[in-house]
Every structure is written in structure tokens, then in C-alpha cells.
């Protein structure tokens, strides 16, 4: 007989009924430091006595209490606990809050959803999954950017709508790092989140309303994106290897004219213009080019397949006191363009956590380093592929050299000689120390550091030019942009928690000191002794430093939170912040922000509990507060001269840098929200409905100015107010919950409205032609197309002011709104034994410009969409498109430009897209004893249902490569 107090080795397996569960916490009731966790096989080992009781807990499952009762092998089957999702703590930045008790509006996506998608940028993984968050991809070129709007566009300034990004507590600047001359292939700004490896992310939260964002004060106006990276789990050390291979192709091509249609158009155009002898430079029709040749240039130049390889390894483990996680990843992506171009990204992530035996001192460190190298052609070939005449010559001559067809064209492949290269190295490190001073009182401080360096260049070697021109390397040139940005942040905080009677209080006081320093240098060099020395600026015969500057941004704040909970049912949350920013002039630097939020957990009221039994959760919450925005760039309030980058007689010129206004100040954003959260049938149905209204006033804008002022813009506050309001609905249902089969559905819908509430003096301002009071700020004022004059064959438009002529300034009164009316996603997940199938439909209801806005005048030396064949040829024709012109019919050309800015150039661009499919299979444990293996097939942008007259409806940047369809296969091994 054993003594009841003798320690025995106990082991067993924890499963969910089908699969083993990894990382489950197993501890012995009443014994400290007894915790272990299950390994990848769900197995655990611990020492206990025969009479001990095990507590087995895991997120998402009900905690099991299992008496050992003298057994040596204790297998545990956990029950999934849906209600417990309400118990999960949500990151609110400076504090965390239980999902059920939060007073603010916070949307969340976790690694479970992220890892199902074959994407490079986390923002791509969020598309269609979060209510109120509209994300569009700006290009299908690797390393490109995304545009994100959280609850609409608040600022009239187009570059002032980026959210605040925070990675493990460290603000990550979204200030651009690219320079237009060295970022010619990627439109807009490259997104800072390219530096974060999606698979290193554990959770991503988006703070939307005042209650959640006011604690970020001046930087919360456009919402806050909080990223928490993965941390190690105590228990057996586990190794995970992920590898995948994917291919990417263009989703939709534009249907262009073939040679026959094109030449017919050209000949008709000259006939229309009364030209009988084709001009000497009309090579396509004047006989210089083969009239029977046909090339599908879209296929030739953008029809390739991008190869995407990715690999990641992770080691994690540790004890209850110290946990660690170390991961490394490497990824390469090629392009759909011809030629060898590659985007490479590699990184490492380390997370360390330690707590003292007494639990009074905790420290955690998280660091990530990412290197990106992008090698692209100097221009996106998409627009070119839609402009080239279909009978343009062959790319190569008989000898395999680039064919220049006797100097009659610019061979499109010559663009591949020019390179747009960039290297970006990025370090984000943060440490958080927490001391428990006394019961309920914690002092903590975070220390963060970021270091980014980027080197970008664009080369134009002489080999890009027609060899007949005899351009040697003395014609080769390069633009170079070097940027370094360091920032540090220190945020000491004090937290206090107390419960007395039926009350609970949480208080947080903190301050922030942040300093960011950016150094940039832009150089231009030309005239090289050899093209192979083009990256060596010392070999250039001409070198000009266009700018070399250091920008300092300093930021300081005090913030606090007071949270009071009464009787577990009534919650009041007050937050506030006082902010100072160096971006404003003396006397304008400081401003106060604050919010009040409240929640009522009415399902805990006795009368509900007793009478409405099907209601398992019920909460009413609301908030109101102010946030601000300081995204305006540094030093805008100074009246200064700087070097122009030009020389005159060997002297570097000084030029006035800007028109200056020392008086601009903070933009304020008032946010109001009310929401209703309900759970039915033991939370198998969860419904959240939120209504919000944000008003942005004292708009800080780069006021557009006429050229007569010498500049095109000045920083200034406008007495205009912009309102965003909307409704967000999220619904999650567990349709089937069986031991071997689960089916859950999530649905989100956002209906958003934007409105310019007031703008005194709009009529006399530069914005007269952009905005209308009472309309959204995302509108465009357009001409109203009234069809084609049957006699002249030229487009006609409504003459609004009746002055007998059409003018941009006075006749564009037709308003079209380009922000989505509503958007959302529908996600379904099925699990059957080891199989898991996920698919996500994304839908958007919106308008967009169609091809008419980018294709120019039909009849000139460039190809047109096939639809344009239906054009006017003779009086009486009732055609859809106007008369062709070879480029001399000024009236028709002008009408074509009006048409491109008329309601006829806008069409429905709504779409439903199968955004993501993921199928994975966990190989049964018996097959591979030593490891756990998962196979997955994933695809992105699979198909799209749309009536859009253009290429990709998601896409707003006309003329650039649209997002790709990606199909991926991957393996995951854990051992």
C-alpha cells in the first residue's frame, strides 16, 4: 500500500474529444508551483499524490476538475466553453478588460484567423473580417501598400486618415518612408505594417470609439491598431515549422481591342479628322508596322505567375516563471511581370517573460527584426500593357535582342532595365516591467525602441534607351533615398485595483515621453563610367544631394483611467489625456482629450435571469469623448529656407520652403457610440449592434492654394465639421456543435455615412469644387453626361449655369459618392475530426470610376477597351461612345476629358468576392508518432462577382497592378 502523501508520476492526454490539445494548463488544486502544460500531443506529466485533484484549464474550454483517485494515467476530455469567450481579456492598450465588461468598441482578430491566409501584410488578413474597418489594397506588386479607414474618413487632408499603430506597446510611425522618385512602381506610401510578419502576431485589436481611443488622445482620432506578438507558453519545449508555396496571378484583365478593331478605330479617327496621308509618326497605320500582328499585351506584360515561398520556424517553451518564444521567418515573392524580380523578407522575433517566485515582479521583453529587400522594375507595366497598340512589334529580334523596330517604338521590356530597389531594416523592441507595490497596486513602465533604416533607389541605365541613339553609360542616372528613423518611448504607469462592498475600482495613471528622429538624404547622380557602377555614387560624374535633413518629433502626454463597477452590472469608465506635440508652434502644443463610457450588463439583473431564460448575455453600452490628430509632418509652423538641391555657379541654392502659418492647432474629433450586445441559447448566438457618430472639427488641412501664391498648399485650420456615422452589426452563430463536427458562422456588416456638416465660406474657398455641405467628403463633383450629339458625334453635358459653355469650375454639380455604402463579410468554419474548412466572402457596395477615366481619347496611338468599338461614325448614329480623333479634334478631346469626369465615367463597382478559402487537415496522431503534422490549402481572392466596367473592383488606383489571386499549399510540423 502506498502512503496517501507519496508523490507519484501522473501522466495522461488532454483532448477536446477528438484532437489532442496543446498548451493546456494542468495544476494541482491547492498546491502552488504545480502547474504544467500539455505538449503537442496533448500529453502531460506531473507529480501528485493519489488524493490530489487536477485543475485542467484552457482558453475556450470549461475548466475541468478531475480527482486523481489513485490513478497513474489520467486522460481528460475538455468541453468547449463558448461563454468563456466573454471572459477573455481584450487588450485596450494601456490596460486589458474582460470582453464582457468592456465599455468601448474594440474589434479583434487573432492568430487563428491570420494563419489561414497566405498574405504578407496583416492588413490583407483583416479585409472583410472586422466591422467598421475598410481596407483596400493599393497594388498587387509585392511590398505595396494598403489603405485603411476605421469608421470612415475624418480629415479633409488625404494623408491625415491613418490610424495609430502600436506594436507591443510601442507606437510605430506611419509617416512615409518612401520618396516619389525612388518609389515609382508602388503607388502611395508603402505601409509600415509590411515590416511585421503576420504569423508573429497573436492578436490584433482595433480600438474604434471614444471610450477606447481617448486614452491615446491626440493620436486616436482615426482609431488605434494594437498588435500583440506571440509569447511563449510554459511546458514542454515545442518546435514548429511552417512552410508553404503559393502562386499569384492577376484577378481580372480589361477586355481590350484586338488588332482588327484597333486599326479600324485608328483609320476611322484619321478619316474623322480629315487626314488622308497618315502622319510620319503614326507607325501603327502608316505601314511601318505589320498590320496583321497581334499581341495581347496584358498577358505578355502582366500575365505571369508570381511565386511565393514562405518558411517559418518557432521554438517556444519555458517554465511557469520564465517563458520564451523565438521564431524566424523567410519569404520570397516574385512578380507577374516578365523578368526576374523578387521581394525578399526575413525576420526574427523573440519574446521573453519572467516573473518572480512571489509573482510581485514581472518583466517581459518582445523584439522583432525584419529585413525586406524589394527588387522591382522601375515602373508598373499595367498601364503600358493597356496602352500599347495590339499590332506593336515583337519584343525581341531574331538574335534575341530587344527589338526597337527601327526606332519606331519604345520597347516595353526596356523598362525592365531600370530598377526600383529598396531595402528596409526594421527593429521594434519593447520591455515592460511590472512591480506589485502592495495588494492591488502595480507600478509598471514600458520602454520601447524602434530603429528603421531604409535605402531605396531607382536607376535609369543607358541600356533602357534605343541603341540607335548611341547613349552610353554617361546617360545613366540614379535616384537614391536613404532614411533612418529611431524612436524611443517611456511610459511609466500606476495601476490600482480595489474591491469593496459591491464596488470595484480600477485606476490607471500614466505618462508618455516619446522622441522620434528621422534622417533622410536624397541624392541624384548621373554620368557613370560603366553601367555596372551605377550603384556607386563616387563613379558618377554628376552628383547632387537634393536634400539632407533631420527631423525631430517630440511628444509628451499624461493620461488616466478611472473604472468603476458596481454590483458586476453597472460599469463606468472615464479616460483622459493631456498631450503635447512638437508639430505645433509655441502656444499651440498642448491639448486635452477625454471620454466617458458606461455599460450595463442587464442579463445579470434578477428579473431578466428569471424571465428571459433564452438570453444568456446582454449588455448595453455607450461612450462619448474627444480625440485628436497631429498627422501633419514636422516643423510646418516655421518660416524657413532650405537648400533647393540645385546649383548655380557652383553655389547651392536656397529656396523658401513653404508658406507658413504659425497659428495652426489641433484637430478635434468627437466620438459618440451606443451599442447593444446580446447572447442567446447559451451564447450560441451572439449579436452586437453598434451605432456611432464621429464629428471632426477645426479641420487641420494642407489648404490647397492656387499657383499664384507660389505654392500649392498651406497648413491651416478650417472651420469645417465632418461627420461620420454608421451602424455595425456582427453576428456569430454556432450552428452545429457535435463532438466530431462543428459549424460556426460569423457575419459582419458596416453601414457608413459621411457628411460635411458645416463649412463656412465654402463657396469662396479653394474647396468649392470639391465639397458640398450636407454631402460626404468622399464625393466628386462631376459633369452630367447627356449623351452624344447625333450631328457632331461629340459627348454633351448639362450646362448647369447656362452660360453656353461647359467649364470645370461651374458645371460639375452632379455628385457621386465614392466611399462604400455598406460592406462586410461572411465567414463560415467547418471542422470535422482533423479537417477544417474556412471560407470568407467579402462584399462591398460602392461606386468607382470605370475605364473611361483612364483611357484617354479614343483614336489616338493607344489601345482602348473593346467596348469602345461602339462609337459614333456618321451623323444620325446612336452610339454609346463619341467620335474617334487622332489627336487634332480639340473639341472631341476636351469632351473626352469632361466625360472622364462625368457621371458616365462612374459605375457600380460593388462586388462579392470569395476572399479566402482555407482547408486544413491535422494528420492523426497515430500516423506520425514523433510529430504533429498539419497540411493546408489556402487561397485568396478566388473569384469575384461584379458588374464593374474595369479591371478589379476593389482597386482604387487606376492603372496599377490589381491585387493578385493567390493559391497556396503548406505544411506545419510540430514536435
Amino acid at each position, binding site marked *: 500500500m502506498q502512503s496517501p502523501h507519496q508523490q507519484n508520476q501522473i501522466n495522461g492526454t488532454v483532448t477536446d474529444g477528438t484532437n489532442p490539445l496543446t498548451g493546456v494548463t494542468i495544476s494541482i488544486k491547492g498546491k502552488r508551483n504545480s502547474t504544467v502544460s500539455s505538449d503537442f500531443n496533448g500529453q502531460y506529466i506531473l507529480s501528485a499524490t493519489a488524493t490530489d485533484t487536477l485543475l485542467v484549464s484552457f482558453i475556450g474550454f470549461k475548466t475541468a476538475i478531475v480527482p486523481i483517485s489513485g490513478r497513474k494515467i489520467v486522460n481528460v476530455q475538455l468541453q468547449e466553453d463558448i461563454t468563456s469567450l466573454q471572459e477573455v481579456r481584450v487588450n485596450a492598450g494601456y490596460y486589458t478588460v474582460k470582453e464582457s465588461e468592456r465599455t468601448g468598441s474594440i474589434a479583434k482578430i487573432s492568430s487563428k484567423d491570420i494563419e489561414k491566409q497566405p498574405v504578407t501584410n496583416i492588413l490583407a488578413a483583416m479585409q472583410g473580417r472586422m466591422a467598421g474597418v475598410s481596407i483596400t489594397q493599393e497594388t498587387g506588386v509585392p511590398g505595396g501598400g494598403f489603405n485603411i479607414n476605421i469608421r470612415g474618413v475624418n480629415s479633409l487632408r488625404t494623408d491625415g486618415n491613418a490610424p495609430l499603430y502600436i506594436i507591443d506597446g510601442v507606437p510605430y510611425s506611419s509617416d512615409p518612408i518612401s520618396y516619389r522618385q525612388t518609389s515609382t512602381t508602388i503607388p502611395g506610401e508603402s505601409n509600415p505594417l509590411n515590416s511585421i510578419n503576420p504569423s508573429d502576431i497573436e492578436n490584433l485589436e482595433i480600438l474604434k470609439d471614444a471610450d477606447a481611443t481617448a486614452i491615446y488622445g491626440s493620436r486616436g482620432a482615426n482609431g488605434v491598431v494594437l498588435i500583440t506578438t506571440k509569447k511563449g507558453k510554459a511546458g514542454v519545449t515545442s518546435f514548429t515549422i511552417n512552410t508553404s508555396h503559393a502562386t499569384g496571378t492577376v484577378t481580372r484583365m480589361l477586355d481590350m481591342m484586338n488588332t482588327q478593331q484597333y486599326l479600324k478605330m485608328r483609320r476611322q479617327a484619321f478619316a474623322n479628322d*480629315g*487626314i488622308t496621308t497618315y502622319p510620319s*509618326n503614326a507607325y501603327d497605320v502608316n505601314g511601318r508596322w505589320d498590320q496583321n500582328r497581334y499581341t495581347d499585351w496584358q498577358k505578355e506584360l502582366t500575365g505571369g505567375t508570381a511565386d511565393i515561398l514562405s518558411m517559418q520556424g518557432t521554438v517556444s517553451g519555458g517554465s511557469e516563471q520564465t517563458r520564451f518564444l523565438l521564431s524566424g521567418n523567410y519569404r520570397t515573392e516574385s512578380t507577374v511581370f516578365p523578368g526576374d524580380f523578387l521581394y525578399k523578407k526575413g525576420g526574427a522575433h523573440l519574446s521573453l517573460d519572467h516573473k518572480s517566485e512571489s509573482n510581485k515582479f514581472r518583466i517581459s521583453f518582445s523584439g522583432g527584426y525584419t529585413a525586406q529587400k524589394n527588387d522591382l522594375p522601375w515602373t508598373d507595366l499595367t498601364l503600358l500593357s493597356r496602352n500599347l497598340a495590339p499590332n506593336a512589334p515583337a519584343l525581341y529580334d531574331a538574335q534575341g535582342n530587344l527589338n526597337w523596330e*527601327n*526606332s519606331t517604338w519604345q520597347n516595353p521590356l526596356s523598362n525592365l532595365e531600370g530598377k526600383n530597389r529598396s531595402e528596409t531594416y526594421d527593429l521594434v523592441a519593447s520591455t515592460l516591467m511590472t512591480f506589485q*507595490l*502592495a495588494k492591488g497596486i502595480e507600478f509598471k513602465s514600458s520602454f520601447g525602441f524602434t530603429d528603421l533604416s531604409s535605402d531605396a533607389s531607382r536607376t535609369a541605365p543607358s541600356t533602357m534607351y*534605343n541603341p*540607335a541613339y*548611341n547613349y552610353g553609360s*554617361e546617360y545613366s542616372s540614379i535616384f537614391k533615398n536613404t532614411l533612418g528613423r529611431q524612436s524611443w518611448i517611456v511610459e511609466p504607469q*500606476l495601476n*490600482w485595483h480595489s474591491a469593496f*462592498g459591491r464596488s470595484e475600482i480600477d485606476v490607471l495613471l500614466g*505618462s508618455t*515621453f516619446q522622441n522620434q528622429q528621422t534622417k533622410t538624404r536624397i541624392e541624384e547622380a548621373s554620368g557613370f563610367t560603366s553601367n555596372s557602377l551605377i550603384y556607386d555614387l563616387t563613379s558618377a560624374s*554628376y552628383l547632387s544631394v537634393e536634400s*539632407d*535633413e533631420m527631423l*525631430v*518629433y*517630440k*511628444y509628451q502626454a*499624461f493620461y488616466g483611467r478611472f473604472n468603476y463597477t458596481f454590483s458586476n452590472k453597472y460599469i463606468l469608465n472615464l479616460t483622459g489625456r493631456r498631450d503635447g*506635440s*512638437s508639430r505645433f508652434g509655441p502656444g499651440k502644443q498642448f491639448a486635452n482629450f477625454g471620454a466617458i463610457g458606461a455599460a450595463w450588463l442587464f442579463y445579470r439583473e434578477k428579473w431578466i435571469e428569471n424571465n428571459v431564460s433564452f438570453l444568456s448575455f446582454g449588455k448595453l453600452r455607450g461612450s462619448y469623448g474627444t480625440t485628436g490628430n497631429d498627422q501633419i509632418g*514636422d*516643423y510646418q509652423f516655421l*518660416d*524657413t*529656407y532650405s*537648400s533647393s538641391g*540645385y*546649383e*548655380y*555657379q557652383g*553655389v*547651392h*541654392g*536656397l*529656396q*523658401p520652403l513653404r*508658406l507658413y502659418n504659425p497659428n495652426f492647432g489641433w484637430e478635434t474629433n468627437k466620438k459618440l457610440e451606443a451599442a447593444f450586445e446580446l447572447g442567446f441559447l447559451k451564447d450560441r448566438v451572439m449579436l452586437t449592434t453598434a451605432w456611432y457618430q464621429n464629428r471632426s472639427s477645426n479641420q487641420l488641412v494642407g489648404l490647397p*492654394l*492656387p*499657383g*499664384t*501664391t*507660389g*505654392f*500649392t498648399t498651406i497648413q491651416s485650420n478650417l472651420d469645417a465639421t465632418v461627420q461620420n456615422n454608421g451602424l455595425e452589426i456582427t453576428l456569430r452563430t454556432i450552428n452545429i456543435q457535435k463532438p466530431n463536427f462543428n459549424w460556426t458562422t460569423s457575419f459582419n456588416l458596416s453601414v457608413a455615412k459621411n457628411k460635411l456638416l458645416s463649412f463656412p465660406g465654402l*463657396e469662396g474657398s*479653394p474647396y468649392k469644387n470639391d465639397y458640398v455641405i450636407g454631402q460626404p467628403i468622399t464625393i466628386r463633383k462631376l459633369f452630367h453626361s447627356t449623351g452624344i450629339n447625333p450631328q457632331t458625334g461629340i459627348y454633351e453635358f448639362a450646362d448647369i449655369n447656362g452660360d453656353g459653355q461647359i467649364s*470645370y*469650375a461651374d458645371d460639375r454639380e452632379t455628385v457621386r459618392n465614392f466611399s462604400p455604402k455598406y460592406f462586410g463579410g461572411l465567414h463560415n468554419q467547418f471542422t470535422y475530426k482533423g479537417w477544417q474548412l474556412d471560407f470568407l466572402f467579402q462584399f462591398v457596395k460602392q461606386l468607382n470610376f470605370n475605364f473611361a477615366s483612364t483611357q484617354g481619347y479614343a483614336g489616338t496611338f*493607344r489601345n482602348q477597351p473593346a467596348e469602345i468599338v461602339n462609337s459614333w461614325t456618321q451623323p444620325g448614329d446612336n452610339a454609346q461612345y463619341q467620335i474617334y480623333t487622332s489627336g*487634332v*479634334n*480639340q473639341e472631341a*478631346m476636351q469632351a473626352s476629358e469632361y466625360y472622364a469626369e462625368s457621371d458616365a465615367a462612374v459605375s457600380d463597382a460593388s462586388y462579392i468576392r470569395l476572399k479566402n478559402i482555407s482547408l486544413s487537415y491535422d494528420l492523426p496522431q497515430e500516423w506520425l508518432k514523433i510529430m504533429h503534422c498539419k497540411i493546408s490549402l489556402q487561397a485568396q481572392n478566388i473569384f469575384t462577382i461584379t458588374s464593374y466596367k474595369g479591371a478589379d473592383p476593389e482597386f482604387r488606383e487606376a492603372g496599377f497592378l490589381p491585387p493578385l489571386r493567390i493559391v497556396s499549399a503548406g505544411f506545419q510540423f510540430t514536435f
Partner: protein
Amino acid sequence: MNQEIYIFVKRNKTMLFSAWLVALCGILFSCDSFVDTDQPNSQLTSSAVFESKATAEAAMTDIYAQIRENGIITGKLSGIGNLMGNYSDELIAYETGSYSSEPFYNNSILASNALISSMWNSAYNQIYAANAVINGVDNSIALAVADKSQLKGEALFVRALNHFYLVNIFGDVPYVATTDYKANSVATRMTTIEVYNKVIADLKVAIDLLPQDYVSANRVRPNKATAQALLARVYLYTGAWSEASNMASAVLNNESLYVWDENLDNIFLKESTTTIWQLAPAYEGHNTEEGMVFIFSSGPPPTVALTNELMSSFTAGDLRKSHWTLAVTDGTDTWYHAFKYKEKTDTGATTEYSIIFRLAEQYLIRAEARAQQGDLIGAKEDLNKIRHTAGLTDTSADNASDIVDAIIKERRLEFFTEHGQRFFDLKRTGKLDAVIGNKLGWNSSDSLWPLPQSELQVNPYLKPQNPGY
């Protein structure tokens, strides 16, 4: 409830003490100076710029660099030397697309044309910079009087020069004489006569302020004669014949600086003694943008070539045809390019600067002004000076009107591809429709270019747009 609060305070003494500590820390660190930043190391305050001669001169000469790179009269494809050459009858465009010379060649430019808006914006940007120099110099304490005069004279000259081109290209335009953006953002169109009056007033002050001699080598900064040369042209364009004649004489009489040269191959060299004002190159070894743009070595031409009309208007023996143009052939076809500037690429030392004002123009201005005033002998004397240099005999014209016609014809052959002289001559003499009316895209209203559409959109007071756009 009171009881609860009491317990709360009692239990939480540590907390309250800590809160007090954090608050204290906050106050200690909260001095506003944390968010004060020093001025960035790459910027100088505007007032400091004008307290030193070196920086004040760098602010002034940068405007010349801007004119060279982006101005209306830049030698690049975006300057009027090329665009007006295409728009009139000097050049034919081989490049295609809306951001090229093609719409200019076709006389079918639209108000949205990006080359036009950038031309407009850069001209007013240079005017702003000139006004900033005028303000800075006026308020400067440390600058010497002579430097102040020189700089202010140059700035007034640049202001006048830009407005002169603007009024000729766009017709009625705002005359901007202040840096106040509030006033300038609601600028209205001023009549052509008013603009000219202001140009003349600025130039008169500039002539008073600028010294006779050049302050720098190679005639790259304007002197008194430069302002006089422009004023002579302004008087010619406005039909003030006697003033035009006198002003041209003022330049021509300055024989210590300006010496006539009979060798056509010397005229466009940087040492030319007939140059009144030229732009220094971007760097030593670089030659002109004009040379870069116009010269080509194989056909079809990559960008532009001289028109057959221009080539056939040279009479036999005109040395300008053999010295200032060059034929390129591929065996079947032949094209011609301007060859005034001989260097397309960099040379060890720069040999050619981009010339803005040269002596020949002053002779032809005086010739025309004299003819208009009935001084036929004086007119022919000046005209024949140019003809002789070109290897031609005396003009056969004998009455005022024929002499003026002969001068206009001579100007075409002398000034082709030089800053739109040809177009402006046809325009001011009312010959546009007659001479280039046969071009397919030409309309009578095309004598003015459109105001940039973007400009009309942001300044509701600038209306109306020019006719035909």
C-alpha cells in the same frame, strides 16, 4: 455608501501615496520644454537668410537655377522653346501622348494639360521667391547698400521677366507683387495693359538699381543692360516704338561689353561677346538643355525635329542653315535638328550656356522700331547687320511695311527654337491665322493658352477661362 468610502480611503493609503508620487513626477517632467524642438539643421529662418551676403545671394541665384530647370524658358522639353516651337511652325513632334509635345504640335491642348499647369506654377513660384528676396532685402540690417541694390534689382527683373512671359502666353494674368498668400490666393486677372505697365515699372526700378557691369563671371547674373534688353522687347511688343528704339540703343551703345561677332559658330559659346544674359549650367561640364533636347543622331527622331516649312524658308547661302541646323538621314528619309548649341552631352569643361538675351535681338528690335517710326535707313542698317552675318545681301525691302515684314522673316531664321520668339512675333503682328491657320488643330482662339484648369478650380476669382477652352 459613506462607510464604503471610509473603508476605501483607509485601506488604500499606499495607493494614494503612490498616486501622489506619480503626480509629482509628472509635474517635474511636464515642463513644456520637452516638446520644444530646435530648428532643423537643414533649414534657415527667412530673416537669417538676408543677414549674410552669401545666403542672400544663394536665395537669389536659386531662382535662376529654378528658371533653368523648371521655368517657362527652360531649355528642356517642358520649356516654351520646344512647346511654342511645336505650337507654331518650327518643330514637328514625334513623341506621342498627352504629357508630350504632341498636343502642342496639334494645337489641341486642353486646360488640364500638366505641362501648362507646371509652367504656370513654377513661374509664380519664382515670382514668390523674387518677392521674398525683395522683402528680405528691404528688412535686412546687415546687408551692404550695394548688395541690396544688386539683389533687389535682380529680383525685380525676374519678377518682370516671368510676368512678361505669362501675359504673352496666357493673356490677362494676375500680377503678383507680394508674398501674402491670402491676397494671392484670390488673385484676379489683370488686363494685359496693366500687367505690361507693372512690368515696365519694375524694369525701370531694376535698371536704376542694377550696375553697368556684371557681378559675376560669364554674364550669368543680370546687369543693367539685361533689364534694358527686356524692357526694349516689352516696348516693341506694346508698340512703344521710340522707347523700344532708345532702350535697344542703350544696350547696343554699351560697346565695351557687347561686341558684334560675325562668326556664327561663336554666338552660342559661353564666351560669346554678343550674349547679354545666360544661365549657368547645373554643374561644370554640363552643357545646355537645348542641346540635349534638340540634337539627335538617328531617325526617326525620338522627340522633335525642325519642320520642312522652316527649313525651306532659308534662302540659298544662308549660313544659319548650314551652321545652326543639321540633317540626319536613315537613307530614305531626312530630318533636321536645331544645331545652335553643338553639345548634347557633358564635356570636360562646359562650353555652352543657355542664352536668354543676345545682341542680335536688340538690333532687330531697333530695326523694327525704327521702321515703324519711318526711319527706314536706320532700320535697314540694323537689319542688314544681321543679314550680313548670315552671309546674305542687303534687304530688298523698301517701304516701312515691307521692311517690317522682312524683319519678321529675319527673326524667324535668327531666333528659331529660342523661347517662342516666332510664335510671339506672329501673335503681336496679327499673323497667326494667316501663317499657321492651315494646321489641322488650329483655331483663332488658340492664340492664348488655357489657364490651368486646376488653377481655376482652386481660385474662384480667376475666371474667366480663355476663349476656346
